[in-house]
């Protein structure tokens, strides 16, 4: 079944993924509760800032921590060895991935009917309200957030590889590459899919059932609940926010910038190239639009049946390297050169890779659309493009934009597939970053990270500028 090394790697991966999921959800619950229940200055800004770690490649977190701890060695603070350990990896990946669960749980809390909580607070104490109403209401979201974080962590290869720990993805990679045992590699690839598939089945069939785990309706309000607001507690919360933001965003980006300004002094034009930045931008732009269309198709065809939904959600755990290898074998044919030798291969691979996630967004949004709207529309309009344009599109517009922004981020920061099947003459910021990191040319990295962050933030800035979506919502 599994060799000792593979079994050991599987245990490592499971331990790391469970650890990251647990701590991410813990942090997210704290952040989401604080931001939803307390009048803290800058709460809207923090809600946005806590998503930034997702835009930073996890290996940059590892790299920056490594450099910081090395610096501390000069002051006889010998903590570097703790980084090259399973708890060290859990710590780094928690800082990189907690925004996934934060976003889901925060939206869930914002979506709890305000009047329900306010009424409950009139008759009982906040602890009981928290236990009986709030926790019960956000349980589906919390469980889903836990599982998503587990999946993302399980298929992460760069941080454990950088910190020298053997994880299951490394074993799959080795089977594909060093020993060229393709059937073995495929067998190993199916194991995480099976594990995660079972988890999704339990979650969706017995725990979450048809409850939506995420809501965009909550963009429409954010009013603090009527509970006591001790000043000292709010100051403590604000301080923790600042510390968390420093550790998860400022540190991974800042260390490289400080190093460059003080020591390397690499000017921007040599540190990066315009071509790599434009490549990243346009492949993310086009791919994200394609992903939204493709995911809509997948949603319509498969997601409305539970089995189809579980199957596609399980595919989230298929290692990206397996997608890459499969795509080489599937598309490397003379008649398909127009696909294989061009960035179209990447666009198709991204569509397959990210469709389950985006389809799930559409599914969970559909669960919350009042069916009476569509029924009423059918009375007024016959099924037609006009109805689609005037009723369906406005109802789905928020989730489509969110899906597009998510897809853009996912593509801009995707590494393993891009590295494997990038066509000749094509490179993105993230693959360039990964390559220079591994060659030890760290002096070239600093400004490229800024470019990556800038490109990743463009869609949200565009939506904010063109539509002012969030401006009037968060009072």
């Amino acid at each position, binding site marked *: 079944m599994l*060799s*000792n*090394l593979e079994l*050991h790697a599987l245990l490592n991966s499971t331990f790391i993924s469970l650890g990251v999921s647990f701590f991410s959800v813990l942090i997210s619950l704290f952040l989401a509760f604080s931001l939803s229940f307390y009048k803290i200055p800058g709460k809207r800004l923090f809600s946005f800032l806590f998503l930034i770690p997702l835009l930073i490649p996890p290996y940059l977190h590892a790299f920056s921590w490594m450099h910081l701890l*090395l610096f501390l*060695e000069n002051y006889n603070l010998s903590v*570097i*060895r703790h980084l090259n350990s399973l708890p060290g990896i859990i710590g780094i990946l928690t800082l990189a991935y907690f925004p996934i669960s934060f976003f889901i749980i925060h939206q869930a809390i914002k979506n709890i009917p305000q009047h329900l909580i306010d009424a409950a607070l009139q008759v009982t104490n906040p602890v009981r309200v928290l236990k009986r109403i709030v926790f019960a209401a956000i349980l589906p979201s919390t469980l889903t957030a836990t599982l998503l974080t587990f999946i993302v962590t399980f298929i992460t290869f760069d941080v454990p*590889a*950088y910190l*020298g720990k*053997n994880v299951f993805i490394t074993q799959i*990679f*080795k089977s*594909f*590459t*060093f*020993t*060229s045992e393709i059937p073995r590699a495929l067998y190993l690839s199916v194991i995480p899919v099976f594990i995660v598939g079972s988890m999704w089945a339990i979650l969706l069939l017995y725990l979450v059932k048809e409850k939506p785990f995420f809501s965009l309706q909550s963009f429409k309000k954010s009013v603090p609940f009527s509970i006591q607001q001790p000043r000292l507690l709010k100051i403590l919360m604000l301080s923790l926010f600042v510390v968390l933001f420093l550790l998860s965003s400022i540190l991974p980006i800042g260390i490289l910038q400080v190093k460059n300004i003080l020591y390397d002094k690499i000017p921007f034009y040599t540190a990066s190239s315009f071509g790599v930045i*434009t490549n990243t931008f*346009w492949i993310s*732009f*086009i791919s994200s639009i394609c992903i939204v269309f493709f995911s809509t198709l997948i949603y319509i065809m498969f997601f409305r049946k539970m089995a189809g939904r579980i199957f596609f959600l399980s595919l989230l755990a298929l290692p990206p390297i397996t997608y890459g*290898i499969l795509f*080489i074998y599937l598309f*490397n*044919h*003379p008649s398909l*050169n*127009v696909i*294989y*030798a*061009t*960035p179209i291969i990447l666009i198709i691979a991204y569509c397959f890779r990210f469709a389950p996630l985006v389809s799930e967004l559409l599914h969970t949004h559909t669960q919350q659309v009042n069916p009476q*709207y569509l029924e*009423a529309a059918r009375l*007024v309009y016959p099924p037609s493009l006009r109805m689609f344009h*005037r*009723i369906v599109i*406005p109802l789905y517009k928020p989730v489509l934009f969110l899906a597009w922004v998510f897809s853009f981020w996912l593509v801009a920061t995707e590494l393993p597939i891009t*590295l*494997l099947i*990038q*066509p*000749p*003459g*094509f*490179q993105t910021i993230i693959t360039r970053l*990964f*390559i*220079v990191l*591994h*060659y*030890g*040319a760290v002096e*070239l990295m600093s400004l490229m990270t800024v470019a990556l962050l800038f490109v990743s933030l463009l869609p949200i800035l*565009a939506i904010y*500028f*063109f*539509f002012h979506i969030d401006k009037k919502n968060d009072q």
Partner: protein
Amino acid sequence: MYIHTMDSGKKLRLKLFYLVLAAFTLLAIFTFPGFLGSQNEVVIYVTHDQDYAQPILEAFEKETRIKVKPVYDTEASKTVGLTNRLIAEKNNPQADVFWNNEVVRAVQLKKEGVLEMYKPKNYDKLNSLYKDSDGYWTGFAARARVLIVNTNLVDKTIRPDSLEDLTKPEFAGLLTLADPRFGTTGPHIAVLYTLWGKEKTENFFTTLKNNGLDIAQSNGQTRDKVVEGTKWIGFTDTDDANDALVNKEPIAMIYPDQKDGQIGTLVIPNTAMVIKGAKHANNAKKLINYLISEKTESSLAYAKSAQMPLLPGVDRPKNVPAVESIKPMNVSWEKIYKNLKPSVNFFETSILE
């Protein structure tokens, strides 16, 4: 009923949004044809460090006006990733040239029937150790496997000068080397299998393991660990070590086993080869001639990687030794290739576990 209305400002923003959308779509459409093939180009897969290889390829492009389309690989999967891609693409090759940073995978590609025979202009000037006798691959710009020590931590008097010194108890827990499944450590172990035999090699690594051998992800990381002082001695390549020397880090580089009766060290050239069925075979040959030239070898010697020229009389900086001054391990690459899988399998099952 839901009535959909828009104020004029919102309409204007929406129009502007569609305009931007259209502009970027057009940009993508106009950029796309650049990826479709043309005759005046050459596709090269490169496993040499991008920051050293890219200037060479840009210079070729400037000199010949032939567009170079590279695919670079990382050290984490170095040579292994692109080799497997070349094998997978065997029936429909995308690459015209493979610039490999070592030899064993070139031997594998020859055996898999991926390569085309081609002897570049300077082929006859090279030592037979650094070229394929049939002309399937040709070597240039070599590096060597070396020991590096942290000079702040390892006194001159106790520094190892042979691989066998590494099993001494005083170095227990202080040695690091890269995972042999990826990169040049694998071929090095395969050479030891060939020269020392299975039993001696396995005993050697088992002793190192019992002494607390540390496995790094790459040669670069091996160097970093020694530079940082988390490990005192590392087993890496000259180009990685030279990176640290250029940055004035506290390390010393030792070519192991150079005395009479000792086995020497592994000298690993870059290799260039034409892919069978290359769509731009003529351009591929031009590029290979450019790579295996005094000019390219000199550029790579002066680069931070400090690689040793293999052609005679090539201009090089003082810190780059002449390849003749180093005692190489004298083993055929075919034998190394044959021993690669069993030796790395041993390492994986007995050392990594």
